């Protein structure tokens, strides 16, 4: 009784404790080689809005044991985003890529793409706080310039630089938010699926895609049909694919 009360209070005060408990239970199922049960337990944690590197890594490993390599790859790709599981997740991605029979072609990234990736990685919140910081800094320099250092060109240059930088930071915040809302990532979990020119199954096939292929999902364009998503393949080809064939994250 006391333990239950303590656990209840603990869960209320620290909701992540509940996530850890479920994680431990699912891990036990994983150790017992009940992979389906373990995956079910892990997904309950995701449904409760918690995430962690080990969570995604373990789901990827469970799917590897079930030979669902597309699913495994999708979770390894999510585990890569966490520093504590990055190295192991990369091994998982490499393994699933080797085992999957079809390899996807990737367009080489331009320097601009790397910049955009980095921009998105910092996140909307990061860019927003940076914008806030630099806007106040600009105000302080402005006051100093107008009322004390009117003739000092260096202060003027610093002021202009600060204002321009603030503008760039704000633009980065808006861009990151736009990209996060409009685009998502996905991996093909079916053995094979056709990329079509429209949402009509009889429409022209743009490309044939195979399990483990990665896509960028355009949520904005996909709003027109709930069962289909508009995607961009890693080789730059666009098209429509059934939503049920993908794991979108």
């Amino acid at each position, binding site marked *: 009784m006391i333990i239950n009360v303590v656990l209840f209070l603990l869960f209320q005060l620290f909701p992540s404790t509940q996530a850890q408990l479920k994680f431990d239970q699912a891990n036990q199922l*994983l150790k017992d*080689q*009940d992979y389906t049960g373990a995956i079910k337990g892990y997904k309950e944690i995701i449904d409760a*809005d918690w995430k962690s590197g080990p969570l995604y*890594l373990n789901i990827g490993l469970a799917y590897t*044991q079930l030979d669902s390599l597309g699913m495994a790859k999708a979770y390894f790709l999510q585990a890569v985003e966490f520093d504590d599981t990055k190295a192991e997740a990369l091994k998982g991605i490499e393994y699933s890529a080797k*085992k999957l029979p079809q390899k996807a072609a990737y367009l080489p990234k331009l320097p601009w793409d790397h910049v955009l990736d980095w921009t998105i990685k910092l996140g909307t919140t990061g860019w927003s706080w940076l914008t806030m910081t630099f806007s106040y800094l600009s105000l302080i320099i402005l006051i100093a310039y107008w009322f004390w250092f009117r003739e000092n060109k260096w202060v003027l240059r610093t002021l202009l630089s600060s204002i321009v930088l603030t503008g760039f930071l704000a633009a980065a915040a808006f861009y990151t*938010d736009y990209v996060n809302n409009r685009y998502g990532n996905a991996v093909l979990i079916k053995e094979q699926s056709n990329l079509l020119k429209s949402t009509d199954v009889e429409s022209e096939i743009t490309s044939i895609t195979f399990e483990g292929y990665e896509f960028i999902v355009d949520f904005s364009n996909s709003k027109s049909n709930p069962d289909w998503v508009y995607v961009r393949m890693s080789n730059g080809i666009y098209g429509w694919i059934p939503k049920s064939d993908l794991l979108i994250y």
Partner: protein
Amino acid sequence: MKKIGNLNRFFFLVSLISVFSLSKVWAQDVEVNATVNETVVFQGERIVLTIAVSGSKFKKITNPDLPELQGMRFLSSTPSTSTSFSFVNGVAKSSYSYSYYILTEKEGEFTIPPVSVSIDQKLYKTQALKVSIRSRSAAAKNPNASPDIFLKMELSNPKPYVGEQVLATVVIYFKNSLEILSYQPTAGWKAEGFWKEELNDGKQPQVTSDIINGVSYRKAELMKYALFATKSGKLNLSPFTVVTTVRVASRNRDPFSSFFGGYGTNQRNVDLETDAVPVEVISLPELNDAIFTGAVGNYKVSRSITKTSVVAGESIELATKIQGSGNIALVTKPKYEFPNTFEEYNPQESSDINRKSDIIKGVKTFSDIVIPRTPGTYVIPEVKYAFFNPTRKRFETTVLSAINLVVKKDPRAFASTTQQIPFEVQPVLGQTFWYSPEKFTVFKQNWFIMMLAFPFVVGIALFFYRSYLDKMEGDVQFARSNKASRKADTRFNAAKKIAESDIKASYAEMQKALVGYVADRLHIPETGQDEDIYIEELVKKGMEPEDIKQLNTLLQKCSTIRFAPLTSMQDFQNDFQIAQKLYKSIRGFV
């Protein structure tokens, strides 16, 4: 049954008519004739149209221009040609002949239209030729008629069940006086409503004898098909066509001679066709408590598994073997229910079917490939598999027993080297850091927007303030205008303050307040100016005449008060109020 008439009499008649049907075209010394070798023929027979050109004085002949035919068709537009020369009474004569094969298709009286031939750029035409085409079916329906040759399709069972095998045999009947030199089935026979398998034992057709309506015939089975009806109801097997080459044999020939004779002079091609054969297909009875996958025949069914004890992740093959005679090619895979933790892969299928005997036999094996993913003890449940036995006219059921399966843990689950690919990533099982995904965008929060807007608002306000200060410092008129009110108020206050001690000085201050205000606002120098200038400016600005008058009076009083005797405090207060009123009025439009 289809019959043709007595061929000896027929050939004689044809030769006779051929002579009379000769068509002649005379033009100078050029002669163009058209002939057919037969004018009365059976449907499906071939006739030869010959265009003969003869003459002594021509140089260039083009190929005949073939007309459109009714009830017949040219087998080829390329003729076989021959040329001959003769020299009679000192005159040289050339002859050319063009021969075309025509296939007779429809029953009736038809005409071959005139054929055009261009000789030395001059057009010659033959006369039209009449051809009578007779029906074999009509001849066969006559009980007194006994055709020389006909084709028949014989069925082993005209009332089969759906899926039951029916043996369809194409049999040729011919009289002793004929020899079959060769036969060629026409491709593309469609047995609509049936699945058909051609049976071939690899032997030449054997000739046997038979007597039909008292007439002795020889017969041979040319083709055999195993037919399986795919739907119930009244179906029709379409006519089967065979093109044969026959010749009239010598009278003393042995009736049991070989099927294929040698070539002779009376050789000809004959197209033979069976009648359409009706088949009434019976539907299968109802079946409730067993799996039926379309098997009709006599079968033995069994089920086996490769292993009953495996480790998780190891594949298992569950084989279902269906062996026997019947529609084995049409049998589909039985569907089993596997435990949820079993992963099912694409099933395999193999078959070995014997088509050499009259009954199709064989074995078909279906393999379900499954991989159990979770350790435990499992049961693949028992099922009843049914096939319809047409001989017994009922379903027969085979019970496929339940299969018990033990799935053990895989000791090397996370250290597999499948397909030579090492993978030894271990799961993370201990404590971990938990993150909650962002539920809101910070820059969309009101407090954040206000905080972010604050420096901008302050910056804009400071900009205006700085601009104001700059203007005040740099623009004297602007500064005077802006300071006018404050200066006038100060002066009025001073006037009021010093009134009790020095009333004349108070009037002077009051005058400065009014004049100074107008001068500052209207950018007029304050000193050294006549008061009339201020009055004029105020008149221009539209000040009321009454106020102008009062102002004028007040300013004059202010100017002259120092020379006047002492003024009472009461007068000053009245004048001060007037000055205040005028000041207020001036502020309204200056």
